[in-house]
C-alpha cells in the first residue's frame, strides 16, 4: 500500500507542477470572468450619447421621440441632401439622421436612418418601436378605437410551476432547470473525457518509454494502476476546487462592485426590449429554489465516481495501446457511451422523467452525465441512491477487469491485440 501511495504522490505532484496544469487552472476562471464581465464592460465603455436628428416630413412625430439615457433626439429642418452631407463631418450637429417621409398609413415605408457608421441595436430598436407605436395609435384613431381602452383590455399570462414535494411548495422554472441541467451534464462530459484521456496517456507513456518493466518489478500492476487513477483523480479535484474558489470569489466581487451597474443595464434593457426583466429575476430566484447542498453533493459524487468508473477503463485501454500498431482503435468503443450520453442528455431536458431518462440515469455508463442533467428537474431519492450504488459497483467491476487487462497489456509490445485476446485475459 505504501508503494501505491508513492505512485499516487508522483502522479499528483508531477502533474500539478506542470505549466499546462497551472495555465489551464488559471485560464478557466479568467474566461469565466471575461464571459461575465464582457457585456458589462461593453455598457461601461459605451461611447457617450448619440445625437439623432429627425427630419419629419410627415409632421406626425413632433414630440413623439423621448430622449433616453444614451439617445438624444432633435427635430431638424432642412433639405435631406444637405443634411446628409453634414454627416460624418467634425462639426456635425448630429451623429445620425432619421428621415421620416410622408407616408401612407396603410403601407408605411421609407423610414431611413442615415449614419456614417452602422447604428447599434439600441438605436435601431428604439426607433422602430417608437415608429410602430405612433403609427398604431394613428391607425386606432382612424378606425375610431380608443387605444387606451385596448391597452386596458390586453392581458399577459405568466404560467407558474409550483412543485409540491414533501409538503413544501417550490417555484419551478423550466428555463433555469434546463440551463443548470445542460451545464452540469456538459461539464461532467468534459471532465470524464479530459481526465480519462489523461490517465490513458499516463499509462501509454509508461509503456511507450519502457519504464513499466522496472516499475512492475517493484509494485504489483494492480496497485500501480490504482495509484495512477487516484493520483490523477486528486489532480482533477484540486483543479475543480481551485475553480470553485475562484468563481465564488469572482461572484462575490462582482455583486459588490458591479451589481449597481448590472441593475442599470437591466433597466436599459427593459427600456428597449420591454418588461422581460421580471422573467429574468424569476429565473434567478428559482435557481435559489434548487436544493443546492444536494446538487453540490451529487455533483461531487458523480464527478468523482464517474471519473473513477471511466478512468479504470481508460487505464485498461492505455495498457493495450501502443503506437506501433493499430491498437488505438480499441479505445473507440469507450467513447461511444459517453457521446451517446450527451445525445440522451439533450433529450432529457425536454422529457426529464421519460423511461429513457430514467434508465439511462441508472446505468453507470451514462449515469454520471444523465443523472446530473436530470437532477435540476427533481429526482426521487430512491432513484438517486440506486444510481449512486450502481455507479460504485460499476467502478469496482471495471477496476477489476481493467486490472487484468492492464497487467498483461502493459508488457506486450508490437503485437496486435484483438478483442478475443482481451476476453481471454479477463476471463482466464
Amino acid at each position, binding site marked *: 500500500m505504501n508503494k501505491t501511495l508513492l505512485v499516487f504522490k508522483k502522479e499528483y505532484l508531477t502533474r500539478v507542477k506542470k505549466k499546462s496544469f497551472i495555465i489551464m487552472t488559471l485560464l478557466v476562471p479568467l474566461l469565466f470572468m471575461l464571459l461575465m464581465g464582457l457585456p458589462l464592460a461593453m455598457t461601461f465603455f459605451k461611447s457617450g450619447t448619440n445625437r439623432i436628428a429627425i427630419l419629419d416630413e410627415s409632421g406626425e412625430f413632433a414630440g413623439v421621440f423621448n430622449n433616453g439615457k444614451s439617445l438624444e433626439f432633435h427635430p431638424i429642418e432642412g433639405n435631406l441632401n444637405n443634411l446628409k452631407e453634414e454627416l460624418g463631418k467634425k462639426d456635425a450637429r448630429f451623429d445620425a439622421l432619421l428621415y421620416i417621409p410622408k407616408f401612407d398609413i396603410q403601407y408605411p415605408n421609407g423610414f431611413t436612418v442615415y449614419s456614417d457608421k452602422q447604428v447599434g441595436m439600441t438605436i435601431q430598436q428604439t426607433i422602430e418601436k417608437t415608429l410602430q407605436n405612433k403609427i398604431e395609435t394613428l391607425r386606432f384613431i382612424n378606425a375610431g378605437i380608443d387605444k387606451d381602452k385596448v391597452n386596458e383590455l390586453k392581458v399577459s399570462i405568466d404560467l407558474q410551476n409550483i412543485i409540491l414535494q414533501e409538503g413544501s411548495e417550490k417555484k419551478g422554472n423550466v428555463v433555469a432547470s434546463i440551463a443548470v441541467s445542460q451545464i452540469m451534464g456538459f461539464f461532467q462530459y468534459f471532465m470524464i473525457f479530459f481526465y480519462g484521456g489523461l490517465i490513458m496517456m499516463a499509462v501509454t507513456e509508461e509503456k511507450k518509454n519502457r519504464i513499466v518493466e522496472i*516499475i512492475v*518489478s517493484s509494485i504489483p500492476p494492480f496497485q500501480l494502476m490504482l495509484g495512477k487513477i487516484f493520483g490523477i483523480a486528486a489532480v482533477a479535484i484540486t483543479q475543480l476546487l481551485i475553480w470553485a474558489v475562484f468563481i465564488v470569489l469572482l461572484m462575490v466581487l462582482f455583486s459588490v462592485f458591479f451589481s449597481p451597474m448590472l441593475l442599470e443595464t437591466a433597466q436599459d434593457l427593459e427600456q428597449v426590449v420591454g418588461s422581460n426583466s421580471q422573467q429574468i429575476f424569476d429565473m434567478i430566484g428559482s435557481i435559489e429554489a434548487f436544493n443546492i447542498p444536494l446538487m453540490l453533493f451529487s455533483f461531487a459524487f458523480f464527478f468523482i465516481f464517474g471519473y473513477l468508473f471511466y478512468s479504470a477503463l481508460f487505464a485498461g485501454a492505455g495498457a493495450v495501446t501502443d503506437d506501433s500498431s493499430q491498437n488505438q482503435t480499441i479505445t473507440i468503443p469507450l467513447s461511444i457511451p459517453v457521446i451517446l450520453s450527451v445525445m440522451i442528455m439533450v433529450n432529457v431536458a425536454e422529457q426529464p422523467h421519460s423511461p429513457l431518462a430514467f434508465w439511462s440515469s441508472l446505468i453507470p455508463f451514462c449515469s454520471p452525465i444523465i443523472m446530473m442533467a436530470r437532477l435540476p428537474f427533481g429526482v426521487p431519492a430512491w432513484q438517486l441512491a440506486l444510481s449512486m450504488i450502481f455507479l460504485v459497483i460499476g467502478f469496482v467491476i471495471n477496476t477489476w477487469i481493467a486490472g487484468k487487462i492492464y497487467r498483461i497489456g502493459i508488457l506486450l509490445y508490437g503485437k496486435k491485440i484483438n478483442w478475443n485476446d482481451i476476453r481471454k485475459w479477463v476471463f482466464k
Partner: protein
Amino acid sequence: MDAILSLEKLHKEYEKVVAVHSIDLKVPCGSVFGLLGPNGAGKTSMIRIITNITLPDSGKLSFHFQNSKISDPMNNIGYLPEERGLYPEMKIGEQLKFFAQMKGLSAAKAHENIQYWLKRFEIEDWANKKAQELSKGMQQLIQFIVSVIHDPELLIFDEPFSGLDPINTERLKKEIVDLSKSGKTIIFSTHQMSQVEEICNEIALINKGRFILEGELKEIKNRFKKNLFEIKYHGSFPNNEINGFEITIKEEGHAIVKSLKECSYSNLLKTLSDYVEIYSFTEILPSLNEIFIEQVTLAKANKEEEHE
C-alpha cells in the same frame, strides 16, 4: 556455497509456446551467473518470473537473502530490463528518488545513495536535468543506477551493454565486477558470449525453454575441450603425426597440435621435444560461442530425430 535463488520445476506457458519448461536452477550466492541463449529462448520470461512481473503456471521460486530485515524479496533485487526507459520530463534526481523509494528505501537513505552513485560516476550536475535532455548512453547509465540504487543482494542485468559505446561498456563492466567483488550475486542475461567469458563464473545455457547446459564456466570449458594445443617452436617435424599427436603447421615455427587421446601436458611436451625445441605452449579451450552454437545445433538435431 548456498544458493541465493532456487527454482524448482518452474513452468510457464503462453498460448502456443512453452516459454519456461519445468526448469530447476540454483544460483550460488556471490556468483556472476550468465544466463545464455538465443533470442526467444525464454530468458526474459524466466527473468520476469524471478522479478515477480509474471506468475509461473507451476513450480517453486525461493530466495535466501543474508539480510532478513527486508521482508519483500522484490526490495532486495535490482533489475535492469532489456527494454528500459525513464520518465522523459522528470528530473534525474527526482526519478532516482522515486525508484529508490519504490524499492522500500526511506527518503533520507534514498538521498544518500543517490549522492553516492552520482558522485561515483562524476555526474552530480545531472541531478537537475530532465531525462530527455540526456543522450541515450547517458540515460543508460542512469538506468543502471536505478537498478543498484537500493543496494540489493541480487542483481539481474538483461543485455546491459546493448546500445552502449565502448567507453561506457567498459565503465559498466568495471562496475559489475566491483559489485561482484563486494559480494553481490549477479544474473547476467545475454547472447554476447565474449562478455560472458570475461565476467561470469557460472553459466546456464537455455534454449526453447530448457537448460541444455549449466555449471561452472571453467568446468564447462574443460568438458568441451578438444585437446588442442598451440605451440611455437624452433626446428621442424618429420611428419604430421607423431605418437598419437596430429600436427597442423600454420606457418614456420607455429603449429596446432591435436592430442588423439587424453594425455598430460608433460607427456605432450616430452614427446614433441624429441623433434623440436618448444618455446611457447598454450592449450586451446573452446570459446563459449563455439560451445553455444554446437549445443544449440545439437539440441535441434536431437529434436528432429525425436520427431522422426
